[in-house]
C-alpha cells in the first residue's frame, strides 16, 4: 500500500506526515498527532463525535482520508481555545450544563462553532439542524441547544 507525504495545518501549526492511503483523518489526528479530543464513535459518519473543521467547514473525520488533507487547514476541539481563553461556545455550554460524559462534546462544539461562524444569529431550529449529526446520549440536547443560543447572544 502506498504512502503519501502530506503537509497540512492543524490548529495553526504546520505539520508534515507520511500516511498510508487508507488512513482516515480521524486516525491520523488521534494516533500520529495525539490529538485525542476528536473521538471515534461509529466510524461511519453517523454519530458526529469525530467532527472537525476542514478548511472552515465541519466534516466527519472518520470519512475523510488523511491524504485528502494535503494542503488543508484542520481545526480540532483542541484548537478552539486561544491563550487559555475558552471559545464563547465552550464557556456557554459549560454554563448551560450541556456537558455530561463529555464524549460527544468535542464534536458538538465544532459543529456549533461552524454554525456560529456561518450564521452568527441562528434560530433555535437552525441550531437543532446544525447539531442533528452529533448524537448525545446523556444530556437530552436541551442544555446544549441553550448553550449555543447563549453563545450567539454574546
Amino acid at each position, binding site marked *: 500500500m502506498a504512502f503519501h507525504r502530506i503537509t497540512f495545518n492543524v490548529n495553526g501549526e504546520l505539520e508534515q506526515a507520511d500516511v498510508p492511503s487508507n488512513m482516515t483523518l480521524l486516525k491520523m489526528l*488521534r494516533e500520529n498527532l495525539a490529538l485525542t479530543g476528536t*473521538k471515534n464513535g461509529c466510524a*461511519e459518519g453517523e*454519530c458526529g463525535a469525530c467532527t472537525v473543521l476542514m478548511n472552515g467547514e465541519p466534516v466527519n473525520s472518520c470519512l475523510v482520508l488523511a491524504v485528502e488533507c494535503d494542503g488543508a487547514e484542520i481545526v480540532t476541539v*483542541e484548537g478552539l481555545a486561544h491563550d487559555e481563553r475558552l471559545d464563547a461556545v465552550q464557556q456557554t455550554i*459549560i454554563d448551560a*450544563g450541556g456537558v455530561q*460524559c463529555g464524549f460527544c462534546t468535542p464534536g458538538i462544539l465544532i459543529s456549533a462553532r461552524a454554525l456560529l461562524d456561518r450564521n452568527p444569529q441562528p434560530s433555535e431550529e437552525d441550531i437543532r439542524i446544525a447539531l442533528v449529526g452529533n448524537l448525545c446520549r446523556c444530556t*437530552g440536547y436541551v442544555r446544549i441547544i441553550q448553550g449555543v443560543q447563549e453563545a450567539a447572544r454574546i
Partner: protein
Amino acid sequence: MVMEETNTKVPSPIGENKIRLDAREKVTGAALFADDIQFGSGLLHARVKRSPHPHARIISIDTSKAKALPGVKAVVTGEDYPGYIGLYLLDRHIFCRDKVRYVGDPVAGVAAKSEQIAEKALQLIEVEYEVLEPVLDPEAGVSPEAPLLHPNLEEYEVANFIFPEPGTNISNHFKIRKGDVESVWDECEALVERKYHIPHIQHVPIEPHVAIAKVDETGEVTLWGSSQSPFAQRNLIAKCLGISQSDMRVIAPYVGGGFGSKAGVSMEALAVVIASQVKGRPVKLLLTREEEFYTAFVRQGLVAYFKMGCDADGRLLAMENKFFWDAGAYTEYGVNITRASGYSSSGPYEVPNVKTDSYCVYTNHPVGGPMRGFGMPEMHAGLEQCIDELARDIDMDPVEFRRINCLKTGSVLVTGSKMHPIGLTQCLEKAADAIGWGSKAPPSAPNKKRGKGIALMWKAPAMPPNAGSSAWVELAEDGTLTVGVGGQDIGQGAFTVAAQMAAAALGVPYEWVRIATPVDTLYSPYEWQTVASRLTWSMGNAVVNAAKDARRQILDLVAEAWEEDPQNLDIVNGIVVSYKSEREMPLKDIAIYGLPKPDDQGWLGGPVRGRGNFMPSYITGLDPETGQGERAVVHYTTGAQAVELEVDLDTGRVEILRGVSAFDVGRAINPELVEAQMEGGFVQGMSSALFESMQLKDGVMQNPSFVDYRIATSTDVPLDLENIIVEVPQDDGPWGARGVGEHSMVPTIPAIANAIYDAVGIRMEGPPFTAEKIYLAMLDAGIVK
C-alpha cells in the same frame, strides 16, 4: 426548576449549583478516555472471532494458520480458560468452550501488530460448528420441550438470593405471595388484564467499549478500560483466572457514557486473557460500533402479563403479574433484574393482594445486562398503562386514582415492609399541575390530535445487601483537599457531588477540592460499582465520613495545641476558628506539619488523611416462597412524569411538546445536576418509547448501526422540559440525599403511551411507538382511512 421549600439549614456548598469539576477538560478535549491513552508503538491490537450462530456446538477450532501469520503475537481460545465468570450467577466462560449461545459469542481472540493483521488472522481461524436449535422466545424457553441452554445450571455458583431452576432455562424465579389474589377478584368493580412486550434495546453510549490489558512477567495484570465497575472487574476477572485480586489492577479514566453497559464485566476479560499470552505488551480491544450492538450488554426483552382489579371507590385490591424476561445467552447479571422487578412488582402502589412470578429465561439472544432503570422502565411500561385503564374503567381521573393508591409514608409494601418517608404524592400533584392536567389545548393543525399522559414510578438500588463504599480525604500543604473515591463519573456528575460533600463536611470552599482521578484500584478506595443510582447516597456517605474523620483529626489537634475543648472549634471556609477564644488559624498552617505544642517544646499532629466507609447493615432477606421480608432494599426513590404530545393523523408520527419530571430526591446536593439527570433521562426514555428496538430475527440483529438503530437527535426533543425537585429526606442519606440517575427514564414510556391513548384512543402491545406502528393501529381501528 421548582424547588420545594425546606426548613433544614445545610452547610455550603450543599444545595448549590456548582459547575461540574470536569467541565473544562471536557470542552477543551483534554479529558482522557480509555482509548485516548497513548501506549506507543509496543501496543498490540486485538480482534475477536465470534459466533455466527445463535446456538451451536463447537466441534473444532483450528488456529494453526492464524498463528503462522507474520505479525500475529497471540491466538487464544477457551481451551486454556476453564473458569466461569459472572456477577450474581457464574454462567459464562471468557471464551466459549463447548457451545456458542448467541450471535457474537467470542470463540477466539488474536493479538497482532496491527488491526489489519489481527483481522486477517481471524479469517484464518477455522471453526466447525454443529448448529443447534435455538430458543428465541422467553415464553417458549420455559416450556419443558425447549432445548436446554445451560444443562449444568445446578453446578453454577450463585448468590444466595437468586433461585435458578436446574433442568430448565429458568435461571431465577422470583415469587411474591402476598395476601390472596384469588379470593378478591370477585370483589373487584373493574379488572384489567393485559399482555405487553417490551423489546430489547441498547444503551448506545457514544463511546464504544474499550479495554487495554497488560500482563507482566510475574503475572500481575493491569487493565485500562471504560468502566463503571473497576473493583467488580478486579474481583470477577481475578476470581475467574484464579489469581489474587491484588495482582489485578484496573485503571478507569473518564467513561463516555455508561447507562449500565459498562458495569460488571462484559468484554474486558477478553483483553486480559489475550494479553496473558504476550507478556509485557499492552493489548487493546476496541469494539466497533457494530460489535457494540451485537455483543455488548443489552436491555433484556420482557413479556409481561398483568391482571389487576380495584373496587368501586378506586382502591386497588389485587395484582397478579407474570414476567418472562428474555435474558439472553448468559444471565449472570440479569438474574437480579428479575428479582428487582419482582420485589417492585406492585409499582408504587399499596396493594393488599399481590401474586408475582418473575422468570429469568435463558434465550439465544444477546446477553442481557443492567441498563438505566434495571428492569423498572420495562415493568412500568405495562403496569402504568393498566393503572390508567383501570381508572378509566371506573370513570375516575387517572391522577385521582393514583393519588388514592400511591405509596405514602408508612404504606405496606409488596414485600411486607413499611415505606420510609416519601414525597410521591407531591411529585404526582406537581407533575399534574405543571402539565395542566384536566385542560386540553387545541391541536396545532387540523390533521393532529393532542393528548396528555402521566405515570408514576418507584425504584430501589438493586444490589447485594452489603455493597460497600469507601473514601479518603487528604490535605495538601496549602490546605486544599484531595478526595479519593472508587466510584466513577460517567457523566452524572458524581465527582462534583463528592467534592461538594467533602467541602461541606470538612468546612473548606468547594474550589479547594480535587478528586483523585483516574480511579485506580491500586490507589483508589474500594467501591462496589457505579450502578443502581447509589453513589450520591452510598459513596456520599463514605466521603462525608472521611471528611468528618479528617475534621476530627484537625480539631483534636488544634484543641490540644490551643488547650481548648474541640466542641468550641469549627472549620469555616478553610480556617479553624474557636468560638470561645476567637482564635483563628488557616488550614494551611496545620495540614501537613502539625502545630507546636502549647509549651512550644515539640510538635503535635502530622499529615492529615481522613478515611471513611459506608455499608448498609440493615438489609434482610426475602422468603423465597413468598417474597416477604422485613427490609429488602435500602430505600426507594419515587417520582412522576407527565407529557403533552401530538399525533399526526397523516403519518402517525408523535411529537412530544412538553415534558415534566418530578422526583423525590431526598435532598438535591447540586440541583442543576439533578435537573440534568431528569432531563437526560426523560429524553433517553422518550427515545426508547418512540424509536428504539433491536430487531432480532432468528437471533441476528437486523439493525446493528446508527443508520437503522435510531436514537433521539437534537431535532426530536422538546425544549419545554420542566424539572421539579421534591425533597423528603432519606434518614441515612448525606443531608438526606437519594439517587435519581436512573429513575428519570422509568415512567417515560407509559406516560407517553397514556398520552397517545388520550390523543387518539389506541394502545399498543409495546414500544417503540413508531409512526408506522401508531398509524397502522389507527388504520386498523378505523380512526384513519
